[in-house]
């Protein structure tokens, strides 16, 4: 591996701006780090170059650990957004700088200078000053200068950011060509997805300091694993679906029946270009999703852009995308090619049938949030909790209100008449908290969040699975949430004190397996700790600090009756007023 990052973390004033990032870049590979501004991508790049020190983790270049090696000894080439050419030196002097500080011979310097100027197609510019060159030319010189000392790694921080569109494209081609020609491992940072698609062998998408996903451009586009990536790379309609034995439906299940009790709420991605419009459901060539009314038609040159609003109640897909969600149906974005447009011209107000040619199901286990309480006011209060607000905004999902007058009452022996809301059900902590959680679990909830609406967004996440069976779903939920919380995470494995020595070793291996699985399957890198003792005590100890920490606990539940038994060690945390938020993930056994 030519560049290897292992759990790199960088904090600014206590806030992680790069959070547990691990990447490997192969020899000669072109990796593009893509993310919105403030996602930590530039900081990460500077950390690789040694221009920024990291707080935790390891950076290796060509198998050599350079974590504590200064930038000047890392032998990397770095290209800056604003060129950073030395204005008082000529182009030739700029290019020769790296060789001059290495005290290379004059002849060698001159040969290298000529070679590099040829490479960037700016021969004969040796004696000009940077100010006499255009922006595009200056950036070419900056690239040439960065390559002068034959670095094995080239790092570029938004190199086209300050250039206009046409020069940008030309320079993009030049850089791709040079990179191929030299076979140099390259990382380029950008916020422009078009640039990423044009250049990358692999794209890594960063958000809030975390590397969410990393993969081949077309894989990331067609099979994103996260909401963020699906909406950041291209446009996407996110719809809630309900998966059962019969397939995926877009209408929520009604009252509990044997069939609906196994329905799982899922998040699906429907790309605008995968939507088919037809006059009626019979004319559709693809899977019928529902009826919709055309709201807006925009002609966009090669494609036509439409917005349609989902209609007829029964088949309405619940909105996931924030602002577009409202009681009168979801807005869906559609793009059509001109031949498609010719076949069925539509006008605003027209009713059409909507089909999906291809639907991608996100592997995220957290689909939506519901605030559950006995009265509506409490629902609103819970829904306004900073943490829920932050999560729903960032996860592009909405918070439903659910009034359940019977919430928290002990079981009456009869089978439940209502189903707990799908997704994450949120209840208030404090007296009776444990009873409320238990009620929800008994009524089929898969994830229950118990929180004090007054507490701020957690700065830390503690993950714990009560059994090995619960490990996998817990990690899945945790990674899904962590992608959307700028928090540091630690996985806590707690074993009884009297565990024999050889069992401890086995347990440690389990733990490491869990970590590598989390990294491989969910792209989540967390700190892991093995503790010995009573789990309730150890967890309270971990949560004792002043800051707000979210505890994610995986509980294996064989049956509904099991719930109370399993919850008992946590009851103190759930019943405490103003305590830390606790998310219980139910693992089916």
């Amino acid at each position: 591996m030519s560049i290897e990052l292992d759990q790199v973390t960088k904090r600014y004033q206590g806030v992680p701006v790069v959070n547990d990032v691990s990447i490997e870049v192969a020899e000669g590979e072109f990796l593009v780090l893509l993310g919105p501004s403030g996602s930590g991508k530039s900081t990460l790049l500077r950390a690789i170059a040694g221009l920024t020190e990291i707080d935790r983790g390891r950076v290796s270049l060509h198998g050599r650990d350079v974590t504590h090696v200064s930038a000047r000894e890392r032998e990397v080439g770095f290209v800056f957004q604003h060129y950073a050419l030395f204005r008082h030196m000529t182009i030739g002097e700029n290019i020769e700088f790296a060789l001059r500080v290495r005290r290379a011979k004059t002849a060698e310097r001159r040969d290298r200078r000529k070679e590099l100027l040829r490479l960037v197609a700016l021969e004969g510019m040796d004696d000009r000053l940077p100010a006499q060159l255009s922006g595009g030319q200056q950036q070419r010189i900056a690239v040439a200068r960065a390559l002068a000392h034959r670095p094995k790694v080239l790092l570029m921080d938004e190199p086209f950011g300050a250039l206009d569109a046409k020069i940008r494209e030309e320079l993009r081609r030049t850089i791709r060509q040079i990179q191929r020609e030299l076979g140099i491992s390259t990382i380029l940072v950008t916020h422009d997805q078009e640039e990423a698609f044009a250049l990358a062998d692999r794209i890594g998408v960063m958000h809030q300091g975390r590397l969410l996903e990393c993969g081949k451009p077309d894989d990331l586009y067609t099979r994103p694993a996260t909401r963020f990536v699906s909406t950041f790379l291209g446009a996407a309609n996110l719809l809630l679906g309900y998966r059962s034995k019969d397939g995926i439906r877009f209408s929520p299940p009604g009252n509990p029946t044997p069939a609906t009790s196994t329905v799982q709420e899922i998040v699906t991605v429907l790309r605008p270009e995968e939507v088919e419009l037809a006059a009626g459901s019979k004319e559709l060539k693809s899977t019928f999703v529902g009826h919709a009314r055309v709201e807006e038609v925009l002609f966009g040159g090669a494609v036509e852009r439409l917005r349609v609003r989902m209609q007829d109640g029964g088949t309405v897909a619940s909105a996931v995308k924030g602002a577009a969600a409202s009681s009168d149906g979801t807005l869906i974005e559609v793009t059509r090619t001109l031949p498609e447009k010719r076949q069925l011209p539509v006008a605003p107000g027209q009713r059409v049938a909507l089909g999906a040619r291809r639907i991608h199901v996100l592997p995220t286990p957290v689909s939506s949030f519901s605030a559950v309480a006995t009265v509506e006011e409490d629902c609103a209060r819970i829904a306004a909790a900073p943490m829920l607000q932050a999560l729903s905004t960032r996860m592009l999902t909405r918070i439903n209100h659910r009034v359940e007058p019977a919430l928290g009452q002990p079981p009456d022996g009869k089978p439940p008449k209502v189903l707990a809301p799908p997704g994450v059900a949120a209840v208030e902590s404090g007296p009776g908290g444990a009873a409320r959680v238990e009620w929800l679990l008994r009524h089929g909830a898969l994830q229950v969040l118990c929180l004090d609406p007054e507490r701020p967004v957690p700065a830390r996440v503690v993950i714990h699975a009560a059994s090995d069976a619960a490990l996998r779903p817990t990690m899945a939920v945790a990674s899904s949430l962590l992608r959307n919380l700028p928090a540091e995470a630690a996985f806590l494995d707690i074993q009884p004190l009297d565990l024999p020595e050889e069992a401890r070793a086995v347990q440690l291996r389990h733990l490491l397996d869990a970590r590598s699985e989390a990294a491989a399957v969910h792209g989540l890198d967390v700190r892991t700790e093995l503790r010995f003792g009573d789990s309730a005590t150890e967890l309270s100890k971990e949560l004792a600090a002043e800051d707000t920490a979210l505890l994610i606990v995986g509980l294996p539940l064989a049956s509904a009756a099991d719930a109370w038994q399993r919850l008992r060690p946590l009851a103190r945390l759930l019943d405490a007023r103003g305590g830390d938020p606790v998310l219980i993930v139910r693992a089916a056994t």
Partner: protein
Amino acid sequence: MRRFRQPSILPGFGLTLGFTTFFLSAIVLIPLAALIIKGSTPSLGQLKEILLDPRAIASYRLSFGAAFLAATINALFGFIVAWTLVRYEFPGRRLVDALIDLPFALPTAVSGIALTAVFAPNGWLGQKLAEVGVQVAYTWIGVVVALTLIGLPFVVRSVQPALIEVQRDLEDAAETLGASPFQIFRRIILPAVLPALLTGFTLAFARGIGEYGSVVFISGNLPMKTEITPLLIVIKLEQFDYLAAAALGLAMLVMSFVMLFAINLVQAWGRRRHVAAGR
């Protein structure tokens, strides 16, 4: 005049040029001309006698030498001060930044008296220095100290904007290219701020040559030893020897002008080197 008539955002070129000429004449040129006329009245023999008087020569040496030394010290430490103010965030940074300008605002006599009080053999610092055998007040060192105080703001205020201009990117770039901190300083930072540093040096030097108020208190004014030329001129005036005063003033004027002009030429040459193609 026609070819000067460039269309301009600010109208009234004729008016402003007229005002500039009048203002410069009334404030600068006419008094200087009077000085030149008055200074040239004595015969060549008289002039030689006045200007080459050993006391006068000693005063030139002290005036120009101390001003040069003080400007050099300021160039060095003023650079460090400017660097600290530009590059670091620390509590009280704004306060320190404001303090830099104090020598501008303070009446120079006040600075002189304050310095004398501190550096006199019985003063705070004077006592300590006397123990190691260094006497500051009433020696040429005192003159240098006074001129350093007076000149500091010139260097700091000239270098500060130039240092802000040197982007961090440039240093980072040099570092990734393998330059050591010293090489970064010598090849990147220094060339970028050198013109500003030279300007600051010139201003501090010029101010030092002309300084009177702060020096007279700390120097002790011993003829041949700690007497600066401006003071000698005042002494001649007090003796109603107007001729000698004017002649000495003229001599200072010529020497200052030659030196400042020389520094300006160096600066212009440096600028040309940066702009011209070639190395």
